[in-house]
């Protein structure tokens, strides 16, 4: 696992009797749906081998057997709490392949849904981060406040998390009546709530002493490893697809992308929090600028055929840049769908960050990489 240019950690090749091999996962409160094989020398991790694939469900293969519309339900399953965002690049790419131009109102609604979903995702992430740090309240508060937005999404789409809302050609249904008011009310309250986390979590001295200066990912390594999203922005690189390559109507909205310099677990855990506040801003802005009425969906022919060629689209999801690469061969089904998921791209950083760290830092570093195993496995 060691590389010539990265700090080698404690490179120990021969099996020393002080070294113990520990399986963390798949049934482990601190592993999620994966296994990490770590070797520890006392308190220090000397080798680490992530073993994902416990939720590998073959989405990419299945996508080759379904047409562009019917691919929607299963392609959103890898990250059901960020399901709008994981569908987004697929929908954008297939719209380009199918040659569709979607209505303006649908674009705004998509942006709102995607930002709401980003918050939902981050709140869940934060909740688990709390659990991983042994902070049960920090599980409960985000998990509860997240329900405010889930309630909104449910009003909007009819499902709590698996919305199947975006579809090639727009969105499935229009907003319900007086959605804007409810949305504003709950988003405002939500923003108030997340600011409460500062005292018990983000400015808690114990948390800071525990996460600051651990698992430092330098700027160079962040680039070299091709990490993305909050991991990247915590290392001081201002790269957000929403800003750099705006899709739909992001170029008309007013927001910023937070960047921190330290590159440690603390910075990585703080970026999403700041992101959520920006998301609230975007939602309010978009609600204001949205056309108040109009069509939201382009009617498709049954079994539309994509044109020959390939498309690569990317968006910024809750975890980072999410790309979708579709190859089409003029059939109703795509020839190949490849999701380039941020979790998988961030996984590569895990061995590098874990080696040489304390065992106690493992959960916090692991989860601060913004890794969602189901997505990485697809």
């Amino acid at each position, binding site marked *: 696992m060691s590389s010539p240019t990265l700090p080698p950690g404690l490179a120990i090749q021969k099996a020393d009797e002080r070294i113990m091999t520990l399986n963390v996962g798949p*049934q482990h409160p601190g592993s999620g749906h994966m296994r990490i094989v770590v070797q520890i020398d006392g308190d220090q991790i000397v080798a680490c081998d992530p073993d994902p694939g416990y939720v*590998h469900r073959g989405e990419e293969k299945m996508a080759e057997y379904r047409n562009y519309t019917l691919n929607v339900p299963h392609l959103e399953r890898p990250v059901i709490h960020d399901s709008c965002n994981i569908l987004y690049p697929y929908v954008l790419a297939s719209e380009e392949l199918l040659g569709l131009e979607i209505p303006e109102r649908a674009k705004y609604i998509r942006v709102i849904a995607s930002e709401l979903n980003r918050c939902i995702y981050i709140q869940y992430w934060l909740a688990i981060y709390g659990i991983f740090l042994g902070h049960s309240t920090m599980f409960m508060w985000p*998990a509860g406040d997240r329900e405010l937005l889930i309630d909104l999404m449910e009003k909007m789409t009819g499902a*709590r998390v698996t919305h199947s809302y975006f579809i090639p050609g727009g969105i499935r249904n229009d907003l319900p009546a007086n959605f804007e008011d409810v949305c504003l009310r709950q988003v405002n309250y939500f923003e108030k709530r997340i600011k409460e986390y500062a005292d018990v979590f983000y400015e808690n001295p114990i948390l800071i002493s525990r996460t600051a200066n651990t698992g430092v990912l330098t700027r160079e390594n962040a680039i070299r490893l091709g990490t993305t999203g909050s991991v990247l922005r915590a290392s001081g690189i201002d790269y957000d697809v929403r800003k750099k390559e705006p899709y739909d109507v992001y170029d008309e909205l007013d927001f910023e992308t937070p960047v921190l310099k330290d590159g440690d677990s603390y910075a990585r855990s703080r970026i999403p929090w700041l992101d959520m506040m920006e998301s609230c801003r975007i939602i309010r802005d978009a609600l204001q600028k949205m056309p108040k009425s109009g069509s939201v969906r382009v009617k498709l022919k049954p079994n539309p055929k994509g044109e020959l060629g390939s498309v690569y689209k990317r968006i910024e999801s809750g975890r980072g840049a999410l790309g979708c690469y579709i190859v089409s061969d003029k059939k109703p089904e795509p020839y190949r769908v490849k999701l380039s998921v941020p979790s998988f791209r961030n996984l590569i950083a895990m061995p590098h960050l874990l080696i040489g760290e304390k065992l106690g830092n493992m959960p916090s570093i692991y989860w601060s990489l913004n890794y969602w195993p189901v997505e990485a496995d697809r």
Partner: protein
Amino acid sequence: MEQWRLLYNNQGGEIFGSYLYKSKLQLGGTNLIKDLVTPQNANVFVGKLGDILEKAIDKPLGYAINWGRIWSLWPVHIETACCSVEFGAASSPRYDVERFGIIEAFGSLRQCDLVVVQGTITRKMAPRLRLVYDQMPEPKYVIAMGACAITGGLYFDSYNVLPGIDGVLPVDVYVPGCPPRPETLIQGCMLLQEKIKRMKARKFV
């Protein structure tokens, strides 16, 4: 010394037993013990006693123990796929399964009694799931949560997903949905409580 050693090695029991059996306790010319303590008689006697005891002890004790089991279902912390998100939501403040005595995020599987199979079981996961189930102490219950765990759901034609977990674990309650709403999960837990109530706790006698 020699006899004692005989008594306690493997055949010792036999000698000891037959010594009692063939003892000279005789009454009126018949071998009392031999006649009275026949296997049949013993069975009848024990059966009668058992009936009485069952009425007196089994029912109330079984009721009490079942009551305890109902209100203290501790799910094991095994996340298998995306349904775990909604499982987490079920213990969030909004749905708070702790009202029913279900504590989520419990540490070790040795103290748990409920496996909530939270979604897709892939081929790689199945043996591990089984191992986790095997290592849990009795009694243990299984809830299949989500379409994937019940039949494979969306992934009915995927190459790496099992079509439901019936082949792996004995399922008690099926909770459909993709993912099931926390309400549905809670309803499933209530069904499980119903089921436990009707189960026999254990034959004590």
